[in-house]
């Protein structure tokens, strides 16, 4: 029995030691000029493993003896795979998709002293306490309303709405013309769309919204209440389908691209889908309208496209930094990543489709670019905000009032402080 107890203890200790082995406090060893660099990347229908391997091949060719190993998430995504790899003591050298926040930053290499980072998109906005951990390839515009120009013409709408009153009026006309005014869906889409739509108004009304929320000078629910009330009125008037929550995002896109709906609020990644679908109607895009009385176009919600970070625990620091630098500055690599996932970057307009050019114009004309939802860098809300917001917005469809939703989100925010 004693032997058994001893054996059990040894195994538990060995197991526990194994589980704790992944955390390293070192600053990353410089490593050799050749060797293997492991990169954990996001895999989607566009960003396949073979795409990633093709992307980094020129880098490998230019650096003989360097092998970049592309690793797909073993969990449902990079976000849940990275902690597992860290816990198993098997962390990659480079991670794509995630952005540094107060939780992630301590695990990542500080890239502030790398001069090349200065010219990468949104690098300042994504910095944390003045330090650069994340660098990206481009931008994803968030506050966009894609619209069916033919439906607008049939409904007698001569120009895209510039404020939310005009948007609401346009919805009424679209409904009268036999269209579903605004296409939405369940999943993450419901809450995301309202966030995307709210960015210009919130950023105009509260230029330092994230800071005010963090310091409790303002509350999310209270500041969003007018938008929630407006959204509730849209549900009530049938401007969005009351059964939309039973749709997946793909179903919503199909509905919109088949010409049934007048508008679809989505990020710039939708450009790629729309271009591939070749809809039978004339498709356009306009900047999300602001609240009445505010200048239009307003500040645009943007996020970093294809963000990269180097893990502090890397044993190949120099090679990893070299790879990330190449990924975000090499013209061919940047062009490829922008085209592959519908991303944008100033100066890279040669290969844009007509719809893509409209999005680039919106980005260029925006007076300011602001963080969105959970945010990034110094503009960050608690982890899980996007999911909680989504559920709260969906409850508008299930009978809750705008005030209930505002109270719910403020109560959740309170529980996270």
């Amino acid at each position, binding site marked *: 029995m004693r*032997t*058994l107890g001893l*054996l*059990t203890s040894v*195994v*538990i200790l060995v*197991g*526990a030691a194994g*589980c704790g082995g992944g*955390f*390293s*406090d070192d600053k990353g060893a410089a490593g050799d000029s050749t060797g293997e660099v492991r990169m954990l990347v996001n895999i989607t229908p566009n960003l396949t493993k073979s795409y990633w391997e093709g992307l980094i091949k020129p880098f490998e060719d230019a650096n003989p003896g360097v092998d970049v190993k592309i690793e797909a998430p073993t*969990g*449902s995504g990079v*976000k*849940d795979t*990275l*902690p597992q790899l*860290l*816990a198993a003591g098997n962390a990659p050298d480079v991670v794509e998709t995630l952005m540094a926040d107060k*939780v*992630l930053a*301590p*695990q990542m290499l500080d890239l502030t002293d790398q001069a090349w980072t200065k010219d990468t998109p949104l690098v300042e906005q994504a910095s944390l306490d003045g330090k650069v951990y994340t660098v990206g390839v481009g931008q994803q515009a968030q506050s966009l309303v894609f619209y069916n120009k033919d439906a607008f013409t049939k409904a007698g709408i001569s120009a895209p709405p510039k404020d939310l009153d005009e948007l609401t009026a346009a919805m009424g006309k679209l409904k009268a013309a036999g269209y579903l005014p605004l296409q939405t869906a*369940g*999943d993450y889409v419901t809450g995301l769309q309202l966030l995307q739509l709210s960015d210009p108004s919130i950023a105009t009304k509260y230029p330092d919204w994230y800071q005010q929320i963090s310091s409790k000078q303002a509350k999310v629910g209270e500041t969003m209440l007018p938008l929630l009330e407006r959204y509730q009125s849209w549900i009530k008037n049938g401007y969005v*389908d*009351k*059964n*939309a*929550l*039973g*749709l*997946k995002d793909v*179903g919503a896109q*199909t*509905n919109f691209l088949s010409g049934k709906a007048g508008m679809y609020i989505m990020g710039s990644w939708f450009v790629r889908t729309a271009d591939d679908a070749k809809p039978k109607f004339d498709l356009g895009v306009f900047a999300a309208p602001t609240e009445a009385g505010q200048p239009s176009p307003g500040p645009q919600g943007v996020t970093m496209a294809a963000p990269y970070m180097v893990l502090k625990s890397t044993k190949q620091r120099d090679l990893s930094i070299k790879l990330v630098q190449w990924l975000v500055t090499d013209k061919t690599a940047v062009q490829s990543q922008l085209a592959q996932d519908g991303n944008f970057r100033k100066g890279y307009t040669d290969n844009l489709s007509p719809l893509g050019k409209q999005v680039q114009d919106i980005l260029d004309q925006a007076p300011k670019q602001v963080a969105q939802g959970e945010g990034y860098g110094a503009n960050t809300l608690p*982890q*899980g905000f996007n*999911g909680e917001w989504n*559920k*709260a917005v*969906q*409850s508008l*469809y*299930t009978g*809750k009032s705008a005030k209930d939703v505002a109270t719910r989100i403020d109560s959740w925010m309170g529980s996270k402080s």
Partner: protein
Amino acid sequence: MRARLTTLSMVGPALVLFVVMLVVPVCLSLYLSLTDWDGYSANPAFVGLKNYVSLTHSAEAIRAGWVTLLIAAVGTVLLSVFGLGFALLVNGASRLNAFFRIVLFYPHVLSALVVGFLWSAVLGTSGVVNGWLTSKGAEVLPFLSDPKWALVSLIAVLVWAGFGVNVVLYLAGLQTVSKDLLESARIDGASKRQTFFNVTLPALAPVVTVNLVLSLVTLLKTYDLVVSLTGGGPAGSTQTAAYLILWDSFHNNALGFGSAQSVVLMVITAGLALTVARLRASADRGVQG
């Protein structure tokens, strides 16, 4: 001494696997449930029972708990009823029955994720059923867009996907029913109904217990079908405990809180499974006594 070594050499490999694969994860989970850990930092901060106290105040976790218990209770009963019903229907050796058995077991072979996507394409707002209804000028049915309907749809699909196992187990159980007793009942003039309730069902009691425990444990862990069918929605109405554990752990980076939830779920699951097994044992003792 030699006998001990022989025993140890025989049970050793299994013991090591048991400890490494089961005891260590459970111990780690228990430890993490007492910490505030984001999944990244090197040293999880020890917070004692704080996560368990938070759990009692979390409206979302409590609702997910009730949803899970409802799914487990209703689903277990339906799985047993349908499982036994179909088993009786296809009991007996014939080529047609062999075909029907394969058809009945087929849903269980599919991955739960695939089942979810399949049924969302059928029940969704733009799905097959609603597409047909709208083409006939009827209203869309909110299978997945209304909280109550979504829960009912989820349970229905869970039962559809899971009852194949129950059928197989009941079919195996039906082979053990004494043919002599069935023959005696027939000679004594018992009706089919009387024969079923007085001969067949009592003989199936151990299988019923196994099915109840298996179904209960499986349904309490419901996760992947939620992901692909409802995504926990609408408005979080179909979030199960397992779904919320994963959500809190990895989306919200609250692994300590997620671990506390998983410990509570583990205790409840074990408690319910043991209760069913003990009730069965006590009923058996009553019959024998």
